[in-house]
């Protein structure tokens, strides 16, 4: 076979690495343990919240400030995801905050955490709030506005590849995109839906015990999973997290300040991003292998390096379960099991249940609560505080991973 597309390369920015051209060290400054999460605010989730995102943004920030014991007027930093809710200028105005010395918007998963951590660690802000009001169940379809923007701007961005090379053939929507990867993953490793299905089963069990997880009053069985609607073969209805209306805010400050506040600080031991060559959101089909998550792998290497720990030190993991087939692939990329072993790891559910070897998404995940990425951070904080509705023992080190199938980000939080 002739020359293939560009080979995935390993992360050159790891510790001790040097620039290929200049020989300069590419090791990075550490943010290890310098910042902490001190407050969480969650507006109850619903299928139709009946309020504006500005309203729920203000509401969740107030809840987070109250939870932290921080005066709202002391908040001087604001970060958010670009797609979700009103920008900091609206929210600042609504809350009556005089000045923001730091504000920024990030893109994928829970990547705005890095902005908050950097802002606090560098002293650009004292108390930074990360807010995510997202009314995805009742709000307008974001993908439709994508089409409109694409048509209007005629931009040459990589994102538009989907309109030129996927849509003409009917490959439309993320469920189909992920299905293509999942089909190949099943083929390469002999993975069965009977194995993958245990992830939603276990998450529905946790969701049934979490009052904010509105989608499951009682757990589903593996049979329910297998009988769920086949939307885009091989993706079932229960392979995709439902849409929900909700709003979450968290407050970050220095570890030093955190020690004087209301709760035991949840220390941000590590925060990292990951990208990889030939990446395209959920459709990195031109890579040599399409059945691994190299962004997640690169993120994990950086994440564990900064924290100075290894996967076996992690007591629970809050993974990106927007699409269930990405969960076993994350377990592999994050180093919790070997390549191709993720599905077997989840089979039967015992290893991923609360009390198991590596409990995952103990709040029910996005599958049980609806997709709102910041739920993972909130549940990690609750586990460390000891207030989860599915509390595990010795929850002193929790991993959070977001952005499966695209640019990845993650956290290691500790008590």
């Amino acid at each position: 076979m002739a020359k293939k597309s560009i080979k995935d390369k390993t992360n050159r920015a790891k510790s001790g690495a040097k620039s290929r051209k200049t020989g300069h060290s590419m090791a990075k400054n550490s943010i290890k343990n310098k910042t902490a999460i001190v407050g969480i605010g969650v507006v109850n989730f619903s299928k139709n919240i009946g309020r504006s995102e500005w309203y729920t943004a203000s509401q969740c920030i107030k809840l987070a400030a109250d939870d932290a014991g921080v005066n709202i007027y002391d908040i001087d930093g604001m970060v958010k995801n670009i797609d979700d809710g009103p920008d900091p200028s609206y929210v600042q105005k609504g809350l009556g905050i005089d000045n923001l010395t730091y504000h920024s918007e990030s893109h994928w998963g829970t990547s705005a955490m890095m902005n908050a951590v950097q802002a606090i660690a560098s002293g650009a802000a004292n108390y930074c709030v990360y807010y995510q009001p997202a009314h995805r169940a009742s709000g307008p379809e974001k993908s439709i506005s994508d089409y409109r923007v694409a048509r209007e701007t005629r931009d040459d961005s990589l994102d538009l590849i989907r309109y030129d090379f996927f849509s003409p053939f009917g490959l439309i929507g993320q469920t189909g995109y992920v299905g293509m990867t999942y089909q190949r993953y099943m083929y390469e490793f002999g993975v069965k839906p009977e194995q993958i299905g245990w992830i939603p089963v276990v998450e529905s069990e946790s969701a049934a015990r979490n009052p904010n997880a509105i989608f499951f009053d009682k757990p589903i069985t593996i049979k329910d999973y297998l009988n769920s609607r086949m939307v885009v073969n091989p993706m079932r209805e229960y392979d995709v997290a439902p849409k929900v209306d909700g709003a979450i805010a968290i407050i970050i400050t220095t570890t030093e300040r955190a020690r004087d506040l209301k709760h035991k600080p949840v220390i941000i031991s590590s925060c990292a991003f990951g990208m990889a060559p030939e990446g395209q959101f959920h459709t990195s089909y031109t890579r040599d292998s399409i059945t691994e998550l190299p962004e997640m792998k690169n993120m994990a290497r950086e994440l564990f390096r900064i924290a100075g720990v290894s996967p076996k030190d992690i007591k629970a993991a809050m993974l990106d379960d927007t699409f269930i087939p990405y969960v076993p692939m994350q377990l592999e990329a994050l180093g919790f099991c070997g390549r191709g072993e993720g599905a077997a790891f989840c089979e039967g559910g015992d290893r991923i249940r609360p009390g198991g070897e590596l409990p995952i998404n103990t709040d029910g995940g996005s599958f049980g609560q609806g997709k709102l990425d910041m739920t993972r951070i909130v549940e990690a904080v609750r586990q460390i505080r000891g207030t989860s509705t599915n509390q595990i023992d010795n929850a002193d080190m929790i991993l959070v991973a977001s952005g499966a199938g695209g640019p990845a980000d993650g956290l290691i939080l500790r008590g």
Partner: protein
Amino acid sequence: MTVKYNADKRIPHPAKWAVLYRSSTPFWDGVKEKKLMLQRCKQCGTWLNPPRPMCPKCHSTESEWVASSGKGKIYSWVTYNEAPDPAFKTPYAVVLIELEEGPRLVSNLADITPEDIRIGMPVEVTFEDVAEDLTLPKFKKAG
């Protein structure tokens, strides 16, 4: 399986969006002439797939478009049971083809039913006029 489209002409086929991305124009111009064109770096020969302005290997902006043999294998596939767009009638399959030159393309199948789809199945390109002014490259059993 031949993809069935909605007969209602007021519903635009999603391929009509396919003039947005400037880098892809040579691909769609090729399809009109029933050729499967791929972008390649002129300097180092790396396939630029999907198309792009610069070679990520040698950083040359000089590229050329060459016709593929159109032969390849099914690399992965999905079947839509629910229409994501009113232009399509379900069920229909979408495949990821690995061409013998290396690059992978998303496409449809011309003559293979979903039950018969196998990863690794050898296929070759065929051009289907799906509307008066629209041709799509699809794949059929190699033979």
